[in-house]
């Protein structure tokens, strides 16, 4: 286990280094430059002064090396747009993103996996059909669209839920208020992931149920319930765990659209803002923070897989 972890951490470091190089190259190649400099009223001299102050007058390779030198010491530079250290800026948004993404992930696991197994057990049944159709719909509606619809329905017309934000500004901030704000964005964010998880679980369970050892168990007279929960779930989890791992970057980094529709103060929106505004330090920091999170989650997923499925351990 220990050598395995050490090896995976080494790999993770290489991954992060690769990520930083790729991001930096793409960022520098993108036209336009920081939106800070896009003000047409700036004079030539003012522009040059700003570029010099931010170190943008240096060749990209020099800029990267400088950035890397500071980054390994934990200094990711100050955001152009926010003028605060990039990590502080991210830190102020991270709890909100974790809350939203965590709730969405929890929702999709709690709903997706059991439903996937149930539908696999009665493949072709009424429940299976209904759920399959619902999944199709959940996957077919863009998040920005379902978000807006839910807002119109529950906030504008029915007036039962707030129309955005994470808390009532200047109002009572309690658990209930927070949950009311969380409900719709979490649902929207969970919908796609839940449907996907359900489909993979169902598919993996079906494959398992058709495998010889399950057939044998069934022939031996094991109850279908027992087979489903003991064997199919265990077996299907190998696939499912990797699917969950795959959803993480999307939940954390790609929640930008849900966050925008619901004015949620999360990191996804921050990242997109940074990318669109070419806020170099912030883009690098957001990308690396998310990448580090994903790398860690990946290691965790591997560990879980080893625990679940001895064959993976052997491999």
């Amino acid at each position, binding site marked *: 286990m220990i050598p395995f972890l050490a090896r995976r951490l080494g790999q993770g470091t290489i991954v992060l280094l690769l990520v930083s190089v790729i991001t930096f190259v793409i960022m520098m190649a993108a036209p336009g430059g920081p939106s800070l400099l*896009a003000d047409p009223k700036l004079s030539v001299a003012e522009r040059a002064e700003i570029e010099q102050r931010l170190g943008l007058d240096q060749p990209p390779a020099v800029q990267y090396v400088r950035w890397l030198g500071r980054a390994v010491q934990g200094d990711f530079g100050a955001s152009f*747009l926010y*003028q605060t250290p990039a990590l502080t800026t991210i830190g102020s948004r991270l709890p909100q993103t*974790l809350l939203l993404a965590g709730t969405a992930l929890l929702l999709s696991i709690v709903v997706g996996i059991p439903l996937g197994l149930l539908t696999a057990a009665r493949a072709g049944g009424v429940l299976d059909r209904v759920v399959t159709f619902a999944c199709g719909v959940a996957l077919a509606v863009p998040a920005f669209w379902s978000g807006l619809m839910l807002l119109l329905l529950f*906030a504008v017309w029915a007036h039962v839920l707030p129309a*955005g*934000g994470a808390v009532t500004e200047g109002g*009572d901030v309690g658990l209930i208020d*927070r949950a009311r704000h969380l409900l719709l964005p979490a649902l929207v964010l969970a919908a796609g992931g839940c449907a996907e998880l359900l489909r993979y679980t169902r598919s993996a369970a079906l494959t398992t149920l058709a495998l010889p050892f399950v057939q044998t168990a069934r022939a031996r007279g094991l109850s279908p319930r027992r087979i489903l929960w003991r064997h199919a779930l265990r077996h299907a989890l190998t696939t499912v765990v990797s699917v969950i791992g795959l959803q993480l970057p999307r939940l954390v980094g790609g929640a930008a659209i849900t966050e925008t529709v619901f004015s949620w*103060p999360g990191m996804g929106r921050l990242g997109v803002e940074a990318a669109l505004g070419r806020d170099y330090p912030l883009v690098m920091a957001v990308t690396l923070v998310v990448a580090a999170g994903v790398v860690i989650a990946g290691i965790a997923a591997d560990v879980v897989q080893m625990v679940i499925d001895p064959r993976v351990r052997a491999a």
Partner: protein
Amino acid sequence: MTRSAGCVWLLLVVAACSGGPTRSDETLRLPLINDPIFNPLLAPDLGSVMVNKVLFPGLVRPDEALRPSPDLAVSWLAATDGLSYTFALRPGVTWHDGVPFTARDVKFTFDQAIDPVSGSRLRSDFAAVAGVDIIDSLAVRIRLKTPFAPLLTLLGYNAGILPEHLLKGMKLTDAIAFNRTTPVGTGPFRIERVSPGSSVTLVRNASFYGTKPNVERIVFKIVPDINAQVTQLRAGELDLITIEPANLGSVQGAAGVRVLQVPVVQHWYVGFNASRALFKSAVVRRALGLAVNRSAIVKGVLKGYGDLPGGTIPVALHDYYDSAAAPVPYAPDSATLLLASVGWTRGPDGTLHNASGEPFAFELLVDKGNPTREQSALAVQQDLSRIGVKASIRTMEFAALVRDRVLPSNYDAMLIWWTTPPDPDQYSFYHTGEDNNHVRYSNAAVDSLLALGRATADTARRRLIYRAFQRIEREDPPVLVLFYPREIQAVSARLTDIPRLGIRDALRHSERFRIAH
């Protein structure tokens, strides 16, 4: 697994909870599109500008006719040579932390504003300022290098006064706590709470020098998406938003929502790069101007929320707009004749060609993402195609458009706009060789009028100067002005006493907003 995940969830809920409860029905809620930086010298973005107008009053502020009126200065006197202005400051004003406001703060602010290493974004606004002298604790003199008439307007624009006692001795950009969480100004509201990415809450300043603010709190909510803003307004969670004409359908007729409109100091135009041979001739630029059906654009794209233009000085500047002249007419036949007079004739394919057989074709740049500008560009393209001029539209991101095409003068034509302080001075835009003269316009008579206009303090004389400028523009238009937009404000029914100004200037009078019960 589910249970432990549930525990983690609860922890997250608790961890994400922050800040204490506050409650008041007398809260004005306004949207911001980005997190503000609480320093009027550093931040040119819309979000910061809006909040800073409330927190940091200037020496003067624009009244509803956009003329400078007293704020932190109660009166002022211009020297006869126009080279200095003396201001009497308002007595008894204190900063939000209780420290008295004095002439030292004014001097500190302008010293920083013109300091090349402070990070100030107001340097070009105050490039004419030579220095500030403290006469006594409540009087200052601003010295100028050359007479500069727009000074008073600019003092009421973005130049909020900063507290010397909190910022002295450090670089403005290094004052992170001040800039991001604990700003101290002299305005009618002071900072109460900042939730990054979420909101900025201001609360009534009990010791404000002016009339007592009508609302208890102003909450600026960060809602970057315009459709989300509309939704929140309709849900009763915002009180005033500014919208695009495209959003009108979503707010008109909605319960509890009113739509207001205010002329703003902007001109939207198609700028032709006069350093290109194609657009050198004034006749060609005038002809193209006659070929565009502006009233169709104002009606179709702006849904009527705009004014037809004469020249580059918008109608919002009542004192200077040449109301005697009719707007530029739509006259495609005259355009064709004018173009023929300088050698552009229709070929068999319907396109204009010159003597050497080259077609009249160019690329029109427009920034993407704004439906008003994209639709205007399409309308211009179609109008020009009717007289045989072929414009191909290229949409690009604004930052790329500015940096890669406009600044290096690497473009044929662009659809863009200027938002200016409420002053007719357009020296930096249309004077020969100025940095911001992106269209490379050059006209000797205009050069001398613009130079004279910014040096002339007397309003009546200035009016004559800018009338003359606008008449020259008819013959030799620097740009093809499309329209003067009006700011469209969608307002909740409970909000009253809104100053009749664009939202930015209206926030200089934030004590007046009232929430009805």
